[in-house]
């Protein structure tokens, strides 16, 4: 066994502390979500499991379950549908945003057209506007277009592009060797073919990084979907969770059900981190992004 130097030992100790601190909330929600409602208050201060049941998870997913809460009479919230809606919402915003932002970023980086730089700075300036200021005009627009409670309305502000994504990708397109574009051009590729077959594939790393950042953002989006997507058919996880809490009013929340739903909502993000974790770290390292 190799011996750790005291400095390395200290380093690992600090890292271990932070690992515990960041995993604790996840563990607590998992633990409570898998407990019987009657056990929640009995051993709240204990870290270990006292009972184990999947009843809460099944219950919030709208499946038959051995746990029935009699205190609530509100219509049950189906988190399976919410999970599906979150997936649709996230996939639409992330793929749309990346595709269109890549087009725009590439154009800003490589193509020459009048007003290019002016347009780009206008874009950057737009990034300075706090999102909250845009909610009301966007809401009115979406409402007037009759897109309330539709996925179209929910993804409308972000699916085309966002200043951040455009800026991020433009930087990478700018640093790519120009000769590659020129070589493709000499081979007879059209502007779109150059973009699609050369410029885009060589940015796989940065695009994966961006996809991960955007996925986490979109998955956690709350306020905008809350404004325009309250209908159960389109309601995303974050909004459904909020509705779930408010259903119980001032009384005691349905802790086990809530935590089961929270656990459910973190699973897709965790899966993504496990699958792409290595790539995330690598692309963050190679891109020198903070």
């Amino acid at each position: 066994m190799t011996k750790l130097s005291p400095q390395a030992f200290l380093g690992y100790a600090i890292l271990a502390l932070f690992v515990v601190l960041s995993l604790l909330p996840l563990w607590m929600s998992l633990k409570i979500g898998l407990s019987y409602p009657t056990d929640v208050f009995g051993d709240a201060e204990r870290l270990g499991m006292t009972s184990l049941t999947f009843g809460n998870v099944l219950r919030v997913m709208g499946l038959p379950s051995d746990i029935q809460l009699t205190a609530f009479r509100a219509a049950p919230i189906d988190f399976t549908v919410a999970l599906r809606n979150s997936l649709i919402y996230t996939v639409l915003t992330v793929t749309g945003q990346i595709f269109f932002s890549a087009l725009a970023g590439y154009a800003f980086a490589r193509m020459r057209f009048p007003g290019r730089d002016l347009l780009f700075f206008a874009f950057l300036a737009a990034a300075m506007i706090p999102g909250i200021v845009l909610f009301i005009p966007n809401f009115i627009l979406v409402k007037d277009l009759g897109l309330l409670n539709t996925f179209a309305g929910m993804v409308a502000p972000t699916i085309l592009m966002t200043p951040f994504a455009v800026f991020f990708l433009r930087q990478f397109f700018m640093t790519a060797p120009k000769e590659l574009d020129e070589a493709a051009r000499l081979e007879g590729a059209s502007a779109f073919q150059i973009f699609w077959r050369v410029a885009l594939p060589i940015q796989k790393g940065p695009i994966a990084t961006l996809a991960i950042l955007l996925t986490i953002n979109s998955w956690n989006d709350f306020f905008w979907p809350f404004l325009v997507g309250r209908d159960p058919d389109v309601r995303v996880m974050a909004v459904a969770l909020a509705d779930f809490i408010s259903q119980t009013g001032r009384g005691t929340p349905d802790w086990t059900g809530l935590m089961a739903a929270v656990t459910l909502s973190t699973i897709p993000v965790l899966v993504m981190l496990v699958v792409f974790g290595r790539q995330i770290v690598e692309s963050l390292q190679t891109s020198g992004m903070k």
Partner: protein
Amino acid sequence: MSFLSIDRVTKQFGIVQVIKGVSIEARKGEFIVFVGPSGCGKSTLLRMIAGLEETSGGTIAIDGEDVTHADPARRHIAMVFQSYALFPHLNVFDNIAFGMQIKKVPRAEIRSRVEEAARILRIEPLLDRKPRQLSGGQRQRAAIGRAIVRKPKIFLFDEPLSNLDAELRTRMRVEIARLHQAIGATMIYVTHDQVEAMTLADRIVVLRNGLVEQTGSPSELYDRPRNLFVAGFLGSPRMALLPARVIRGGPDQLTLSCPACTGPEIDVPGPFRREVRSGEPVTLGLRPETLRWDAADPMLTVRVEITENLGGSTLVHATTSDHQALIMTAAERLAVTPGTLMPLSFGGHPHVFDGEGETLRP
């Protein structure tokens, strides 16, 4: 009729004129080399032929068709970049096949043509490697493969060998010469390296500052450089240049006084392009291989600085009595200690340039 015809082209970057009116004609199958100092516009001119840079003035025609403002794809040209510009995400096969895939050439034909190119370049075992898994020379071959597979009308090379080490450069130089013989295509080749220029070219175009200084076969440029610039640029080691003054001019013979020379005057046999007046300042140009050790009848005496033994021959670096650098190539092995005074004579017809740097030789 010429295959590639460049007629008084100019190129303007903003207010800077980089190419100032260049005309070049190339026959089909000719190997043309552009040489010149850094920044003289070689790459720019090549990129104008490819269509990667707009032409500001003049015309470019390929195979009788005016392509001055045509899209690069329509010029049927292939270019090998200094950085190779291989697509890093594609393997060698797909790199070579890229253009044909774009044009939707049938798969079977793509395969056979890629394999043929790979065979010519001896990279068949590498076809499914990614560029980063290749050595410099292999990347170079892959890049050339991508160029030859499309059977372009003209090949353009922009310093294709400058990223390779000396030995590989020599080998690839021979390969390019072999390739040119095998496929007989028209090639335009940019280089800094005058050995590449001398060995590969059918015709060399010497550029300086956006203008053509001289065009001609390698031996023409070597034997009859039009001016001091070309004389100094071609030939390795460089030609020694000694300042002198005309004592007596004449059509068949010049009598010069030169500070570096041993005697008060030396005679240089003609012919000359024009009458030279006495008193005119001139420059004497001596190729290293025309100098020889001559104790009996020396024309100049130099101080040896250092000798380089190249095995069969020796390079002698020396300075003249008026502190001009001079290099002599001796065909035999010479052992001279630095500081030795060495008597030299020069045979044949040395180059003579007038006060403007233009040659006085016809």
